[in-house]
């Protein structure tokens, strides 16, 4: 195996720019590893070898000709399979979209093409991003490179396992309640959910429109920042897209420091009831930050208690409407029952066969939450809880520059462990959901291994809306402290994934 694939994206970019390596060479290195390990990890649902290499060839040709190239030109990337791509099937992890080739590119995909980044393929996810483990993918779960008997997190487990397993240097994820950050935490990688509206959602197959946000998946903070700078920005196709620029995350990552930073520990998420190893690593990081000049303050966010409840009303409600378009008429699967069925029966049979159990559960729940007579009690109240959570954030950010918590209560769990218990599964997102409800940015970075199982834990950083730069500055600083203590990157502790027999 080429050691090239293990390098950080920022290093690979330098090697590409200096001409020490070509994009074709680099793309081949990842494609080779994908060929060898994807059968084990199931990170990719579709590998785009031909198209990726064509981009690489073009980059190399231009570079050889001395043409000016975008910053990340030639750096391969993986894209979560809920973003539309005209040159690759887009399934959102669902049977109902099997084989669908979209007629348009998502804005983020367009930006990656403009940046001339070879797209290696489309990564696995829980069906329509509903889940925390990829176990709800219609195409089988992805595996955690640290332990292939365990989940890589979800919904973006394909992207996290691809990046953690060195099947891609960076990837695109989407985060509705933690789908970038939770997978990052359990695979020892970095994942960011930007401020709502920072990245265009156009072409992202919507789960819950008011919560969804696209973000970078990487192995270190600077890499996430470089990718964030490519995909962020106003898009007229997304009316909720922020008109103003939030600045350069790469610059923020390069200039990070913890000196004088007020770090808020959220009382309600301070690790109480979390796995001991997760909590221990979290406390160690707090000490590290203090040593580096940060000040720890305690903040209280009492409404976070209701975050999961509000989330599991708003998400299914919006999803039930967003997923109504999957009706067999204009795209996707069609199931025609016996006899001479009407369109109503064809639609119902298609949706029965095309959607998995978790999707159906949430659609029915969302339909209920919006029904007349229940709207005020459920959807209406949940929207009010959102206001309370925003107020909690506002109050907390009066006292602190960033808030921190463990990203997730546990390390990666085993396949099947929570499959039959939806409520237990939902609890994974307890720390990540508030940021989606409030629209504020959040980042998970590696936070050491839990001693009891030697598996990665993550620390989450939260900043006020539009202050994404703080996450990159402080995240990079904390990452540097960690690497100084560990003597290497956390990902370098990961065992080598063994190719299948």
């Amino acid at each position, binding site marked *: 195996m080429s050691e090239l694939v293990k390098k950080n994206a920022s290093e690979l970019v330098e090697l590409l720019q200096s001409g020490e390596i070509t994009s074709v060479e680099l793309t081949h290195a990842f494609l080779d590893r994908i060929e060898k390990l994807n059968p084990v990890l199931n990170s990719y649902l579709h590998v785009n070898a031909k198209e990726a290499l064509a981009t690489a060839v073009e980059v190399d040709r231009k570079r050889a000709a001395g043409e000016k190239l975008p910053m990340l030109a030639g750096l391969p990337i993986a894209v979560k399979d*809920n*973003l*539309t791509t005209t040159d690759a099937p*887009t399934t*959102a992890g669902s049977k109902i*979209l099997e084989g*669908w080739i*979209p*007629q*348009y590119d*998502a804005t983020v995909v367009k930006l990656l093409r403009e940046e001339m980044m070879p797209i290696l393929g489309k990564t696995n996810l829980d069906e329509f991003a509903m889940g925390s483990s990829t176990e709800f993918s219609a195409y089988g779960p992805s595996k955690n490179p640290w332990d292939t008997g365990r989940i890589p997190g979800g919904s973006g487990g394909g992207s996290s396992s691809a990046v953690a397993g060195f099947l891609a240097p960076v990837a695109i994820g989407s985060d509705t309640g933690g789908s970038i950050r939770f997978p990052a935490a359990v695979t020892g990688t970095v994942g960011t959910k930007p401020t709502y509206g920072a990245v265009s*959602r*156009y*072409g*992202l*197959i*919507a789960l*819950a*429109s*008011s919560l969804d946000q696209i973000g970078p998946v990487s192995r270190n903070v600077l890499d996430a920042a470089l990718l964030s700078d490519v995909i962020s920005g106003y898009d*007229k*196709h*997304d*009316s*909720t897209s922020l008109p103003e620029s939030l600045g350069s995350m790469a610059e923020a990552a390069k200039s990070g420091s913890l000196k004088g930073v007020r770090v808020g520990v959220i009382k309600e998420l301070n690790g109480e009831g979390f796995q001991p190893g997760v909590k221990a690593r979290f406390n160690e990081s707090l000490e590290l930050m203090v040593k580096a000049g940060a000040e720890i303050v305690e903040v209280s966010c009492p409404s976070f208690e209701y975050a999961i409840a509000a989330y599991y009303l708003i998400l299914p*409600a*919006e999803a*039930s*409407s967003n997923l*109504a*378009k*999957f*009706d067999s*008429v*204009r*795209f996707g699967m069609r199931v025609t029952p016996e006899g001479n069925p009407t*369109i*109503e029966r064809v*639609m119902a049979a298609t949706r029965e066969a095309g959607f998995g159990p978790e999707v159906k559960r949430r659609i029915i729940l969302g*339909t209920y939450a*919006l*029904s*007349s007579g229940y*709207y005020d009690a459920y*959807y209406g109240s949940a929207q009010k809880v959102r206001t309370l959570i925003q107020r909690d954030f506002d109050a907390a950010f009066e006292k602190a520059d960033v808030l921190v918590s463990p990203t997730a209560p546990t390390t990666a769990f085993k396949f099947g462990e929570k499959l039959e218990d939806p409520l237990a599964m939902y609890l994974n997102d307890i720390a990540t959901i508030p940021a989606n409800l409030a629209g504020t940015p959040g980042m998970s970075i590696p936070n050491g291994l839990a001693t009891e199982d030697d598996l990665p834990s993550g620390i989450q950083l939260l900043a006020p809306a539009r202050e994404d730069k703080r996450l990159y500055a402080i995240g990079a600083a904390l990452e540097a402290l960690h690497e100084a203590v560990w003597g290497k990157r956390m990902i370098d502790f990961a065992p080598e994934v063994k190719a299948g027999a």
Partner: protein
Amino acid sequence: MAKAELMNYEQALEKFEVVIGLEVHVELNTNTKMFCGCRNDFGDEPNTNVCPICIGLPGSLPAVNRKAVESSIAIGLALGCEIAPNGRFSRKNYFYPDLAKNFQTSQYDEPIAFEGTIDIEVPSGAVYTVDIERAHMEEDAGKLTHVGGNTGRIQGAEYSLVDYNRAGVPLVEIVTKPVYGAGAEAPELAAAYVRSIREIVKALGVSDARMERGNVRCDANVSIRPHGQEKLGTRTETKNVNSLRSIERAVRYEIQRQAHIIANGGTITQETRHWHEDRGITSSGRPKSDADDYRYFPEPDLVPVQPSNELIEQIRASLPEKPAERRKRLQGEWQFSDLEFRDVVNSGLLDELEETVAKGAKPQAARKWWTGEIARLANAEGKDVADLAITPADVAELATLVESGKINDRIGREVLQAVLEGAGNPAKIVADRGLEVVSDDGALQAAIDEALAKQPDVLEKIREGKLQAAGAVIGAVMQAMKGQADAGRVRELIIERANA
């Protein structure tokens, strides 16, 4: 779909009070659709004015057309509505194959305009005030074609085809409050109301307002209750009534149908009904039920619409003259009697008349043509005058030809017919067919000579003061000239001859 039994109309009104409510959908004539940049033109080849947004492909997102919002504000202001300082879009969720996303992006609890009023004059001259509850923005659905069976109708069709060119076309839906007290004139009021809405949106320039093309569509709610009863009767909503005549007929039909049912101890089912123009009846559609749960919620992909006072005042300042003021002005300018003017208004021909006068016709001549012969021809074909293939410019030309004596009234009617048949404009038809009246006195004198030879005593009778005797000669001359003579001139020549 048997024809229901009906109660005699007068009897129905004796027994019951009528309450109507009208929902009018106006299609805006923006360049592009409500939420995407596709052309707002659905006459094109099917599915060619469509994109990921208006066919609801996964991942696509809507973006609001600024012009559509401004047009909606203009409509709201013209209807005397308040403009909401904070409006938003909602999703109305229901499955139907012409609805690309299986929800309609519409406005629900925060429409852009609300609480307006409009005065409507009916043919009797009575004026009713109709209260507008709201005017809101929404998107149109695609177009279904039912194939197989033998009717082209939905029932018995083997399959259906969907064209989404119309999906996403901007609509403004104008909803009245319940309208009481029109009594026997309720059907006329309904039609006059829709005519006014048409006039208004046309004058605003925000819609092409052609009913036959579906630019203006009306759903008519009708309920009746025994006089003196407080509780409203169960209403039906008749859809698909797309001409002014149909609206009037459909409302009248529903009154008679409901009256018969109630008078015979039956109950009215709350349902949508369909108007069948050919048979002049309504038929039962889908019953309204608890299953109609649209699960409205705020559209999370769009942000609120908050028109500034400045924008509202700017649009208000650019509104055209109010229809009532315009009528007053035109009646004065044209010097029509109240009766003449009302006749024009009731025929819905004010725009046509104004344009015809602007193109050079005398007001009375313009009125005579439009409300007379043209209206008669439209009626004979069961059409609205507006749907005939004749323009105000044609009528002005025609009136001028008659006024100048180039043709007479009878030839004028013939020319009109030819225009409607597509033979060109009046001047061209007159020239092509050589219809111009013979004004050459020499030719007329020769014809008079010939006629007098057959009736030699006529000149004598005229000299004796029996002027009507000229009639027989005039008739003979006109016959000889195949009608292309100015009868007045012929008469003058004969009298000159007698007195020579």
